[in-house]
């Protein structure tokens, strides 16, 4: 695809797929390249090639070579035919040294070329009320999803995206017969649920992946009220991103567990990366977008592409939203058109105290339960608003995505829940539950893990750009500001790491064993000096934990969590209630980070 002219002195870059290395410009004559004096006479591709070559030379001279060039190149191959350009943020050019490169993995899309028209259109999520002892058949299938007029072949549970909303009473136990009808091995992980270890769905740890056509029976017990979600634990970067996720709503037996509201809704947020009308392919052998995770450019609410989600409401209506971030990498900052928001619960419990909040910050896999009151008629936009980074300008720029609308009519909601909404409850039950852990808040950490990464064989242009453009890393990457670099990074070049400070062991080599009933203090430090520091939503399976301090500052409003966001440069102390025996994964819930090995195991014995 990149062919320069063969006139004297012009570089000729090799064609991807010809079996030649990347970024090699072949000269055909003079000892140096004449400057382009007539741009019309030179192909843009040849310019790119020359520029790439010059950037490499400049980088060597200016910055020194942090890694041997040969080592950078030897791992880059490109016989995959993966030539899809990446949609760049507005105003952000592709890095010339990366033009023409493709990730060194084969491309993968669901269905291997099968037409989306061969399968049924995905249906919206359907509520599945289940009671103790019930059985649910849950099938991962191909579905057709039509987004902005274009059909795509994706996945769904029971033909739905999101999958069925499983609604069960607290302490219920249900049976789920999982059928794998997609083209990848899969499992189902019951995220946040403190269930029996054998049913956790952690591939290669608690079970073998279920092959295409296979079946696995899960017994799922729900000890805690609240909102949870289920998703595969095999190649989440593909399967979850393509639609395999759904919520579970666990109802407390206590009728006063929640404040009275007019309505309850679950909202699952995710995003898809689409170029024009084509899904950006995934990596078959390893995930692409390994550096920052795949950040989509189409945001969705309950599978509905933004800004299509719409909710009709009545004036004065108080609605409880059970929010789940099912995105691979995106962290949201949500608000609702100025409607007052009250946060009441998160992953595994209510907060000790309800709080009014200006917006809701939600990392991948986190859940928050918020209540909103719509006092006046009109349209309330559900927006995700962040201060994005424009690397070309070196400035922050507001980025606002409207996800949908709550349309409030003139009719008044009944009953009036205003008084309850305006009451910020202190949840004594939660505080009592936490009380027995308070004595451990200040204990020294039992373990200290550092979050970092190692790279090998990334394109040299990526390495050098990262070296020179790293004066500042935002504590949280809200968008993917460099998707070209990110796309080219795969799990073969990037190893994200959880490193045990005391032993130096990394990821699955860490030997972490505690006794059942232990109260374990884990200190996580997100190293800002790594090659590409980034926030990590750290998820612990099968247990619950408290965020007791961030950067030494005590958390004054606790909530039981299963996922905690660790911003760049931050030190976060987690107190783990290790009460559930078994082998439990602790990993980053950015799907590409987990697939790039950022996981370890807590053995509760």
């Amino acid at each position, binding site marked *: 695809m990149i062919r320069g002219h063969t006139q004297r002195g012009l570089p000729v870059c090799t064609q991807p797929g010809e079996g030649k290395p990347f970024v090699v410009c072949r000269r055909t004559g003079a000892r140096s390249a004449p400057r382009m004096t007539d741009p019309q006479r030179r192909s843009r591709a040849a310019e790119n090639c020359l520029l790439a070559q010059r950037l490499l030379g*400049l*980088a060597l001279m*200016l*910055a*020194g070579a*942090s890694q041997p060039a040969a080592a950078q190149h030897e791992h880059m191959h490109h016989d995959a035919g993966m030539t899809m350009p990446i949609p760049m943020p507005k105003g952000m050019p592709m890095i010339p040294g990366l033009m023409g490169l493709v990730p060194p993995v084969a491309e993968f899309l669901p269905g291997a070329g099968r037409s989306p028209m061969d399968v049924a259109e995905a249906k919206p999520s359907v509520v599945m009320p289940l009671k103790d002892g019930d059985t649910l058949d849950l099938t991962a299938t191909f579905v057709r999803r039509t987004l902005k007029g274009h059909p795509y072949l994706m996945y769904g549970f029971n033909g739905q995206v999101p999958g069925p909303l499983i609604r069960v009473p607290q302490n219920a136990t249900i049976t789920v017969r999982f059928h794998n009808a997609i083209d990848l091995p899969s499992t189902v992980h019951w995220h946040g649920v403190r269930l029996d270890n054998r049913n956790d769905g952690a591939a290669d740890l608690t079970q073998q992946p279920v092959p295409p056509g296979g079946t696995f029976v899960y017994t799922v017990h729900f000890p805690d009220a609240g909102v949870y979600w289920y998703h595969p634990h095999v190649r989440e970067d593909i399967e979850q991103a393509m639609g395999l996720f759904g919520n579970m709503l666990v109802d407390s037996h206590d009728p006063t567990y929640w404040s009275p509201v007019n309505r309850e809704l679950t909202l699952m947020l995710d995003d898809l990366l689409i170029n024009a009308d084509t899904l950006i392919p995934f990596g078959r052998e390893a995930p692409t977008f390994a550096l920052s995770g795949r950040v989509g450019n189409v945001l969705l609410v309950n599978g509905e592409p933004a800004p299509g989600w719409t909710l009709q409401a009545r004036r004065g209506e108080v609605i409880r939203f059970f929010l789940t971030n099912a995105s691979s990498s995106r962290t949201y*900052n949500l*608000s609702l058109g100025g409607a007052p928001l009250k*946060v009441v619960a*998160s992953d595994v419990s209510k*907060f000790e105290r309800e*709080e009014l*909040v*200006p*917006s*809701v*910050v*939600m990392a991948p896999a986190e859940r*928050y339960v918020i209540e909103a009151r719509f006092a006046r008629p009109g349209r309330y936009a559900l927006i995700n*608003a962040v*201060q994005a*980074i424009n*690397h*070309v*300008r*070196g*400035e*922050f720029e*507001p*980025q*606002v995505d409207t996800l949908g609308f709550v349309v409030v009519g003139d009719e008044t909601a009944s009953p009036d829940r205003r008084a309850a909404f305006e009451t910020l409850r202190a949840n004594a039950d939660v505080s009592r539950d936490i009380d027995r852990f308070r004595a451990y808040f200040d204990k020294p950490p039992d373990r200290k893990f550092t979050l970092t990464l190692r790279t090998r064989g990334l394109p040299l242009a990526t390495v*050098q750009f990262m*070296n*020179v*453009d*790293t*004066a*500042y*890393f*935002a*504590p*949280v990457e*809200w968008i993917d500001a460099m998707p070209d670099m990110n796309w080219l990074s795969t799990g073969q070049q990037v190893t994200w790491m959880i490193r045990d400070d005391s032993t130096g062991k990394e990821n699955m080599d860490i030997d972490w064993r505690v006794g059942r009933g232990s109260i374990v203090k884990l200190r996580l430090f997100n190293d*800002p*000096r790594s090659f590409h520091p980034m926030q990590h939503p750290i998820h612990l399976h099968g247990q619950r934990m408290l*965020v007791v301090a*961030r*950067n030494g*500052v005590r*958390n*004054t*409003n606790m*909530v039981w969590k299963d996922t*905690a*966001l660790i*911003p*760049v*440069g*931050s030190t*976060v102390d987690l107190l783990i209630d290790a009460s559930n025996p078994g082998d439990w994964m602790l990993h980053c819930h950015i799907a590409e980070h987990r697939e790039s090995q950022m996981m370890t195991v807590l053995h509760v014995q």
Partner: protein
Amino acid sequence: MQRNSVLGGPRFARAGPLSVLGLLLLAGAVPAQQLASTRLATGPFEIALFPTNAAPDARGFARLVYAHSPFGVALTPDGHARYDAEIEVSNLPTPASLGDYRSFVAWAVSSDLTEWHRLGAVTNGRNTVGQAELNKFLLVITAESDSAPAARKGPVILRGTSPSSWLQSFLTHPLFRGVSP
């Protein structure tokens, strides 16, 4: 005294001569002796405070911490981070020794100096003030006639810049512009 790279460690050591520019940009015209005894910032939450000629012996260092938020990361609805500043200062003279002043006050100041947001009064020792809600800002401590002035009037005693100020255009980088000087 911290003596690591002014720009924060190994990354910048790798940058070779590029760190030179950063050194200049950070320190500005800080006299060498003052720079040598100033604690330097190393992470995305730290701000080294540099003294001015008004009080050359003053020393300061600030750490940004997210304001209280049930989400851990505190943002405004439009996405600006909400930070409190933990400011540790020493060797502040008595305000009156600098003129008709009674307090030292910390400000978050927009890069073009048009917005001065008062964070709070500071004294020698550790102070927690807040909140700063600007993308890029200067953290400035001035001498003032009272502890809660409506506007800054007094001289600058210590000044630093938010870590986010290090976000720079690709185009300003020597790699793209040629090299300095």
